[in-house]
């Protein structure tokens, strides 16, 4: 089945089995191995990418659903020498150990900061009609869809805290 998606700014047409997930299309067909497969069932967040600017789990999506979509992966956010502010913050705060969850954490952070900037509430938001202030509790809750097996959470939180409130 033929599907055209724009990945990191480049249009790509793939002709693959309808069973191909967005994650497998990125990794196996386009060679973009930054996005990771942790659980393949929506339970870890390692596969998080941005689709039309919104964070999703690419393992629970098939490529065919994304015809015409704009996909951004960790490779498209920034590269050595021209890092995205979120990548830079993770680096400065040493917000990783093995690094397996990191691409998903970073893509998720980019999506999460936009959601907060758009005024989306979370379970931690006391007043649903007021603006959002990214307290530690808010950041933890909003990032709960990304599991870190190495438990680098304190440093991930520190990195996001550095960015919170600033446009990312």
């Amino acid at each position, binding site marked *: 089945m033929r599907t055209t998606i724009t990945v990191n700014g480049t249009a790509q047409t793939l002709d693959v089995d309808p*069973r191909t997930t967005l994650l497998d299309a990125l990794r196996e067909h386009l060679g973009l191995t930054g996005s990771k497969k942790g659980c393949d*069932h929506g339970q870890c*967040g390692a596969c998080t990418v941005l689709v039309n600017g919104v964070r999703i*789990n690419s393992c629970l999506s098939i490529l065919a659903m994304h015809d015409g979509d704009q996909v951004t992966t960790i490779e498209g956010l920034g590269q050595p020498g021209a890092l995205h502010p979120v990548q830079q913050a993770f680096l400065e705060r040493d917000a990783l150990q093995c690094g397996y969850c990191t691409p998903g954490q970073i893509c998720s952070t980019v*999506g999460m900061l936009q959601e907060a900037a758009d005024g989306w509430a979370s*379970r931690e938001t006391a007043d649903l009609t007021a603006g959002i202030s990214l307290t530690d509790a808010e950041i933890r*809750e909003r990032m709960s869809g990304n599991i870190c097996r190495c438990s680098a959470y304190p440093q991930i939180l520190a990195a996001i805290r550095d960015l919170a409130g600033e446009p990312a």
Partner: protein
Amino acid sequence: MRPFTYERATDAQAAVKAVAENPGARFLAGGTNLLDLMKLEIEAPTHLVDVGRLPFAGIEETDEGGLRIGGAMTNARLAAHPKVRERYPVLTRAILAGASGQLRNKATTAGNLLQRTRCDYFYDTTKPCNKRQPGSGCSALGGPTGYGAIFGASEACIATHTSDMAVAMTALDASVETMTPDGGVRTIKVEALHLLPEATPQVETQLAAGELITAVVLPPPPLGGQAYAKVRDRASYAHGLAMVAVAGGRVAFGAVAHKPWRAAQAEAALAAGASPAEAAAAEMAGADADDRRTHKIALVRRLAAATIEDAGSAR
């Protein structure tokens, strides 16, 4: 995953026809439940009709002063909608208590209502399960079943429906609107959409094959406060062991039955002037569980009393 063919629907009526006429066909929305189950081969459709881009993704005001929510609207956008946050806070709170930011960006109104149970044995394809394989038996009976039902269970199945969103919609007296295979439109109360398991737990709702959920309609918000509470094994990103939604004088429970459970006895008690604790006790008098789930009756009773109390002091 078993092989399947895929089409993207551009017209609702054609989508209904495509699924109604092909027993192997299923609707695909966000895919966060269906694709998960297909990977495990618990579901094995031969054709998927993607309804995610049908023009049912918005929200509009109804003439009655309520809201009509599109069946394809994402859970994240619904929870974030200013009118929902302002007038139906219990719905925003319920949605935000479920899944993760990423999943809520993908999950839709209709897909969320129709998500299947998280019963461990339903997911474990090496074990008998009447819901997955009718007649094979129920592996959950007699097991460690904190997730099992305490209302309306049967000998055939003790699974629960664990949608957070649906519990709030039940408390808000919402209805689903569908497009039926004969081209008609049908309205069903959310509280009547799902069925109790009885002898056929594989039949989960009263929808016909190919019947498409196009919207959920909320009546005007009830007088009185709203509140939502959820208890689970970890603080976030986990299905609930028990949920309670309160909207004015209406009370609903989640993860306690094969369907979102309207707590009619608690409502009647409240209307007659009972205290929150008395109202919760009135509902729990009808709960039933084996020895392994008696703790859950106490848990839901306390959670219900506390949530009714909270709603009373809200606003």
